[in-house]
């Protein structure tokens, strides 16, 4: 059914999405924590910057990333000074771009979970002499698990569905930057509609299952909190 090139593209896409999701959970959590709990004047501007990729067209992000990561851009000069060469047309270039692009999809669900948690569980933990790390891992994390799951699933799915930015900075290299969405685009452009259908239908099924998972998590979370309330 899938050609060898398709399988390579699928493997690459999953690898990219997994890497991006792990990185986003690591850097997104402190950002979400700060956004949920701070009273600082910076809360608005930082929140807006985090949400920017939601509204900016991928062409804007892709264009500026190409320029910024290029030899004359700040990022490009930094990566060259560090001996990493230039990032465009490489897997790690896509990772960086996707981290920016999918950031709000990870930060916002976690932030919402932290906000709805409130102060009480933290105060209770403090009275029981929990340190900040203990509080986070034994109190906050279990209580906000649905938020983290939603964030991880959305971040993963959004990276899989990314197209515009990849097209602009990827350069269409097999097993490096040619992800599934680009592969589909190539098929459509080359008028190979049969191949395009196979991959496109696979994407639709995958996306449906992912969203089903997200709504399943939410429902489950609602039900279990209801059960606890009943007890």
């Amino acid at each position, binding site marked *: 059914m899938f050609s060898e090139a398709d399988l390579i593209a699928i493997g690459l896409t999953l690898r990219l999405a997994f890497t991006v999701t792990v990185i986003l959970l690591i850097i997104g959590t402190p950002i979400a924590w700060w956004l949920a709990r701070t009273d600082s004047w910076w809360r608005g501007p930082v929140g807006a910057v985090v949400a920017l990729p939601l509204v900016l067209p991928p062409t804007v992000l892709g264009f500026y990333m190409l320029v910024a990561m290029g030899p004359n851009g700040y990022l490009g000069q930094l990566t060259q000074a560090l001996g990493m060469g230039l990032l465009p047309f490489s897997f790690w270039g896509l990772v960086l771009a996707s981290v920016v692009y999918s950031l709000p999809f990870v930060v916002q669900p976690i932030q919402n979970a932290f906000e709805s948690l409130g102060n009480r569980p933290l105060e209770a933990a403090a009275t029981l002499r929990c340190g900040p790390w203990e509080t986070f891992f034994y109190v906050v994390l279990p209580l906000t698990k649905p938020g983290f799951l939603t964030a991880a699933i959305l971040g993963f799915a959004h990276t899989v569905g990314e197209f515009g930015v990849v097209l602009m900075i990827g*350069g269409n*290299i097999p097993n490096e930057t040619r992800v599934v969405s680009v592969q589909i685009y190539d098929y459509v452009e080359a008028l190979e509609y049969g191949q395009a259908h196979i991959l496109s239908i696979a994407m639709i099924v995958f996306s449906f299952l992912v969203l089903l998972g997200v709504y399943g998590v939410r429902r489950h979370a609602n039900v279990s909190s209801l059960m606890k309330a009943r007890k």
Partner: protein
Amino acid sequence: MRTLSLWSAFLVLFSIAPWAQADQVHVAVASNFSGAMKSLVEQFEYQTEHDVVLSFGSSGKMLAQIQNGAPYDVFLSADQAKPMALEASGEALQDTRFTYAIGALALWSSDSDLIDQSPAALLSGQFNKLALANPKLAPYGYAASEVLNAMGLTESTQAHWVMGENISQTYQFVASGNADLGFVALSQIMSNGAVTNGSSWLVPKSLYHPIRQDAVLLKRGQDNLAAKDLLAFLKSPAAIETIHRFGYETE
């Protein structure tokens, strides 16, 4: 009062519509020809009363759009195959197809010292990336792959290829400095008859098949005077001079 203004709006619409239709032509243009076409349309609109609406994109996308009912009267493709396909399927009119431009390929770098009118930089292998348009999708990309084959460089350079989905994107990769070298359309780096930016090598015609770009009148434009006038204009000496100035040849 309200009905009256509605009525007058209708009247205005109906009195303007036929006149606007007759004088307006929608043209689908391959992206490599966009610079030349804008300049040509300026001349054409100045000479005639017609109004030209341009849409730019890759020829493949344009073809798919035309086959699915896109409202274009004229199609300026980047190749011959797509206008021929439209002719065969009856979506373009017989005997209207002609070669409006023959494209030239150039090896280009945004670094003004890298190339120096010769393929030495390409042969040396001393470059980070070599940009070309996807040979499967873009005629200029196919020509680039022919050149690399003819020079016996396909295998040694393949690991350095980065492919744009069309020739505009390929240009972007080189212009931003992310790729040291790239095969682009001469028309993209030429303004007023000279290459002004970076350094380049005009690839000898013997290394690739001519990139013949054909125009065709589409079925939707069969009674459109502006469409016919535009096609006739593209064959006029004034138009041909402009086309040459943008780095194309003609028949």
